[in-house]
């Protein structure tokens, strides 16, 4: 029987264009999803539970709106969900904030395995998993593409810049998931119906004996801006042979990359 936890973040859909209003990323009208890498974590957690028994709890830190992504994870097959709602208590936060809250959340809990995405596609710091491991004194393996558990022994394959590293470690453990680990399932209709009745606990930082100053971020964002628009380039003309000749000459003389 395993106590499995998944760290999940609600992010913009990958299809979304980004715009800025009053110095902030415009949220209005955007579609939100479970961070794609966290989706691998949910899928793997469910599979491991199905093999080894136990329970999968998905945890997110966010606002009321994150309930939707938690319900999706429950519909995929997770057993319980926890929303740590910071809407009223925190104006801003960074990875230090997130991990401070998670550290308090996990305090005193029996944990065998914590899974998360290796990075969130919005802020993309990739810090939360390894930072949390340090606070909980657990080993941590990042960017995993395969995991097998045998008792407390764990065999992992991880992606290291395209190479595969085979790692041996043991529970309790934190892992962060990389693409290629699995193919996340779509929630089934019965799954969606069942998810409505599954427990979704809502906590505030006060419930974790934390105050706003305990989790005050260490970093500050001073500006958000869009990259300069790329000008449409030159589409070459003529026979293929001529186009290729022109391209090579442009790469050499104009772009100076050859």
């Amino acid at each position, binding site marked *: 029987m395993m106590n499995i936890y998944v760290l999940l973040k609600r992010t913009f859909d990958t299809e979304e264009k980004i715009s800025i209003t009053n110095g902030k990323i415009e949220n209005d009208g955007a579609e939100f999803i479970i961070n794609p890498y966290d989706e691998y974590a949910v899928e793997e957690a469910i599979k491991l539970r199905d093999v080894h028994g136990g329970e999968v709890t998905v945890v997110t830190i966010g606002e009321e709106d994150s309930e939707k992504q938690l319900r999706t994870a429950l519909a995929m097959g997770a057993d319980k969900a926890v929303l740590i709602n910071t809407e009223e208590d925190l104006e801003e936060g960074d990875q230090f904030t997130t991990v401070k809250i998670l550290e308090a959340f996990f305090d005193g809990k029996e944990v065998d395995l914590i899974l998360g995405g290796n990075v969130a596609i919005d802020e993309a710091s990739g810090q939360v998993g*390894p930072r949390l491991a340090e606070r909980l004194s657990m080993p941590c393996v990042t960017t995993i593409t395969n995991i097998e558990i045998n008792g407390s022994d764990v065999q992992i394959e991880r992606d290291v*810049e395209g190479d595969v590293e085979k790692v041996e470690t043991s529970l309790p453990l934190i892992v962060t998931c990389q693409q290629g680990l699995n193919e996340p399932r779509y929630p089934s209709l019965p799954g969606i119906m069942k998810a409505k009745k599954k427990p979704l606990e809502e906590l505030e930082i006060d419930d974790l004996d934390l105050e706003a100053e305990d989790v005050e971020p260490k970093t500050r964002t001073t500006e958000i801006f869009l990259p300069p628009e790329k000008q449409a380039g030159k589409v070459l003309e003529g026979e293929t042979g001529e186009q290729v000749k022109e391209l090579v000459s442009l790469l050499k003389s104009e772009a100076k990359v050859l």
Partner: protein
Amino acid sequence: MSKKVLVIGETREGTLRNVTFEAIAAANIISDGGEVVGVLCGEGQLENMGKEMVYHGADRVITVANENLKTYTSDGFGQALQAVIDDESPGGIVMGHTSIGKDITPKLASRLESGLISDATEVLAEGGKIVFTRPIYSGKAFEKKEIKDGIIFATIRPNNIPAEPRDDSRVGEVTEKNVEITNIRTIIKDIIRKSSDGVDLSEAKVIVAGGRGVKSAEGFQPLEELADILGGTVGASRGACDAGYCDYSLQIGQTGKVVTPDLYIACGISGAIQHLAGMSNSKVIVAINKDPEANIFNVADYGIVGDLFDVVPKLIEEIKQVKVNA
């Protein structure tokens, strides 16, 4: 205010990775005239690589050699680096945003209870503050970020911050530090090399990428040949990976790698927004696609409308010609 800044160097197959030199350049901006101290962990003789860090702008270098540091583990490197940090009490730490950088820096920052700015593409000293620029939403936007107080800790994205030129007249001490490395909880049993040439996508100067238009695993062959003669490496769109033409480790995009090479040649890639997020900040983009309406042409500096299996071999021949004549 000038401060001491530590640069965590990184090696790959016995040589220093270029991003190490870029990190030294970033550290020199952060230190504001203070000392830049390199650190190198590994096994055996590290002195020459330490000197190489000095030639690229480090004031001195500390090496930690230990048989338990032969391959990277977060526990092993964590203990070695923590010992150096305890000795030196730096005001700043910089490392490349590489596989190892991404793994070790959050753990160090967590132990130090400090902030960490990951994946910076620019470092500037502005009005007494160090301001980092970093991509968010996979490069669809950028943010400027600073550390409020404490150690200025950051990782930098390869290929973005120019390294200082090598100058072997520079002198600086390379000292060895002994650290006992114990209790490694993750054991590396094996490393299976899949990247053929050892050039990581994020550090490659030239990338030739294929999409669904490549049509099969064999279809990547001309792309590999083109990458070879340009000294680059091959990447792919999600479409090509999903279709099983190549390994996911080659994927460039919002999920997958984000790259900024000098030259990006997109072959048979339509240019979905997710793919553009991973490559649109490349310095020069060439698109080769049959479909003149393909979105990729909107970000390309140069476009050829045509069949990649016709264009790429001709391109290879032409580049060979130019190289012979050069």
